[in-house]
């Protein structure tokens, strides 16, 4: 009964807000009014899960932005009953995000909830992903100003995570200078430095972070370097560091990117207000993306090279990357550094002439810290039946090897293997909707002692498997609304968006998402 009352009050509240905004949007006050609303609903099959309540969710996000002259007001209403990810709380968070921003050509001041990022996230990084319900935002005040070639940014705030529990407060500043374009170096250079003080929080003692960054943009590429170091006031000998660099080269129809990272971070969760580059690809295939190449995040040294090349209508992409563990921070790994490298290689070849059928081949190899060795490939064909109707079909297959048991006789691990498959068929009508059917399959079984013969890939490659069928409907309404309706089995695994990943629980049942833009 209480929930019913809450539901009504939320709907009435929503209606009141919308009516109010209707009034002020009639050019009386606000020059522009934009926003969006998203309803997420999930209902699992009761018979499938003991933890039924854990998988059920219902949440609503309403976000609005009103702008007048140099001022912007943002409010967000968030209603969880409970949420899909994160802390599964029930109830109304009224306005869980709110800020007022004043902005001119050279000055920007924001009070309330804000996010900021310096040094590609290594020196300072706070962000939110609604897709994954990740939030490392701050509440407080921030200001950014630039004059000629000098840029200054300062902030003071309290960190708030997804569960709205106060973690710590922080204050800091960043100063950078852009050297104008010089013919002598055929480019321009930017140099910057930052300092942040973190107060004592739930996770750690107070500490200071200092960082520097440099960027050289030239006519056929760029070089970027950033370095940060954390020193704990009460633990004078404990230091944490991060070094990241990226080298870009490009020409007509090709590009080469080389990333290098060298991180030594605190051995608990993520470092405070830091979101450094990962230097490995997020995914190219479903069967790879649901299990990312893991890294030794706390003590990690890694390199990534990505080459793209266009030839004769085909686009080629090759990515090779490695992540290794190290005991001590060094800008370059040395022989004294203990390395346990994990490699990944991904490649695609795509033929997609404008407005015509599309053909995609993809293949990859991936090692993980869990000692899974995955290699496989896939093919996708997109048939444009007419200008608005498209039929897409895709098939993927991945072989996995993993050490199962230790053999005293052989003095080595016995290897187990299994295979995973994925099939997708989708019919799409532009600006109307899509119907997609998917089928995932795996014959993975836990290895028990003595059940696997020695040798690689001799077992379970063609055995009986477990299946995850699903159907997804999407429909567009009135150009501003979109409905997504899922029914079936979701296998679970990692869900990633923009380099940020979250473990998705296996699920069977119905999921619905309704998104509206204003």
């Amino acid at each position: 009964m209480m929930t019913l009352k809450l539901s009504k009050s939320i709907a009435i509240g929503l209606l009141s807000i919308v009516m109010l905004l209707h009034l002020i949007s009639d050019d009386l006050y606000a020059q522009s009014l934009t926003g969006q609303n998203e309803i997420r609903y999930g209902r699992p099959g009761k018979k499938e899960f003991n933890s039924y309540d854990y998988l059920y969710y219902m949440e609503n996000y309403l976000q609005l932005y009103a702008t007048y002259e140099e001022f912007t007001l943002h409010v967000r209403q968030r209603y969880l009953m409970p949420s899909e990810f994160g802390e599964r709380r029930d109830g109304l968070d009224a306005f869980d995000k709110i800020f007022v921003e004043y902005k001119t050509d050279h000055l920007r001041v924001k009070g309330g909830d804000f996010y900021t990022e310096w040094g590609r996230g290594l020196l300072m990084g706070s962000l939110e992903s609604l897709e994954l319900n990740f939030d490392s935002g701050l509440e407080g005040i921030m200001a950014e100003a630039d004059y000629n070639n000098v840029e200054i940014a300062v902030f003071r705030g309290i960190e708030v995570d997804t569960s709205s529990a106060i973690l710590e407060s922080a204050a800091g500043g960043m100063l950078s200078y852009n050297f104008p374009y010089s013919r002598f170096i055929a480019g321009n250079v930017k140099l910057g430095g930052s300092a942040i003080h973190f107060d004592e929080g739930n996770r750690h003692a107070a500490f200071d972070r200092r960082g520097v960054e440099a960027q050289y943009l030239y006519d056929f590429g760029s070089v970027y370097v950033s370095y940060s170091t954390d020193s704990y006031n009460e633990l004078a000998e404990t230091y944490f560091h991060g070094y990241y660099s990226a080298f870009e080269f490009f020409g007509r129809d090709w590009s080469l990117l080389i990333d290098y990272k060298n991180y030594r971070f605190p051995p608990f969760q993520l470092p405070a207000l830091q979101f450094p580059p990962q230097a490995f690809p997020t995914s190219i295939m479903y069967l790879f993306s649901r299990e990312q190449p893991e890294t030794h995040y706390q003590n990690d040294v890694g390199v990534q090279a990505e080459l793209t090349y266009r030839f004769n209508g085909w686009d080629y992409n090759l990515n090779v990357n490695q992540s290794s563990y190290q005991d001590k921070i060094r800008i370059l790994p040395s022989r004294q550094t203990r390395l346990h490298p994990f490699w990944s290689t991904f490649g695609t070849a795509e033929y997609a002439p404008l407005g015509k059928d599309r053909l995609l081949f993809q293949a990859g190899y991936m090692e993980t810290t869990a000692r899974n060795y995955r290699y496989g490939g896939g093919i996708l064909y997109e048939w444009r039946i007419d200008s608005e109707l498209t039929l897409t079909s895709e098939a993927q297959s991945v072989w996995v090897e993993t050490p199962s048991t230790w053999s005293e006789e052989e003095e080595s691990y016995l290897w187990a293997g299994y295979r995973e498959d994925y099939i997708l068929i989708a019919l799409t009508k532009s600006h109307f909707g899509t119907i997609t059917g998917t089928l995932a399959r795996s014959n993975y079984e836990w290895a028990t002692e003595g059940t696997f013969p020695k040798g690689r890939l001799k077992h379970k490659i063609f055995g009986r498997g477990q299946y995850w069928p699903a159907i997804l409907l999407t429909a567009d309404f009135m150009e501003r609304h979109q409905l997504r309706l899922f029914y079936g089995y979701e296998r679970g695994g990692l869900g990633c968006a923009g380099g940020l990943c979250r473990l998705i629980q296996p699920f069977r049942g119905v999921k619905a998402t309704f998104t509206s833009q204003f």
Partner: protein
Amino acid sequence: MKRISVFLILTLIILTSMPAIAGNAPDFTLKDLKGKKVSLSSLLKDGPILIDFWATWCKSCLHELPLLDQIGDKYRSQGLQIVAISTDSPKTAAKVRPFVKSTGYDFIVLLDSKQEVRRLFGGTSTPYTVLISQEGEIVYSHLGYVPGDELKIEAKISDLFASKTGDSSESKVEHGE
């Protein structure tokens, strides 16, 4: 279930019956690939703008971009500008410049690593396309991309220019009278 239904039905009725409350596009300032600041208001001085929010890791974005580039070529002489706003976070930001430079796209590329501008325009994910008239009015927005969407986008652009021509001929008549 009845409780959920009440909430869902009420909310859906409100949302779907609501007219578009957005009129003018909110102004924003972002940096381009060379670090130079670019504002929406400065771009609108030259003509209408088609904004596409994209990311290097978003496959459907990468399929839409060449089509938008082609639309840009077709309508550039009439003043249309294509603005591709990358929403890559720092984790993948290094891939933006090599990708754009190697593909040789003619459109303006801006960086929105915190996705603030995308949210300002009501976008929940990528790709997200917004068409803005020279007067600064949002005339069309669309979330996602499937093959064929480019035809609708082009039709909206064509309508925009047609209405502009109509307006100018009407004003000519008025002036003539």
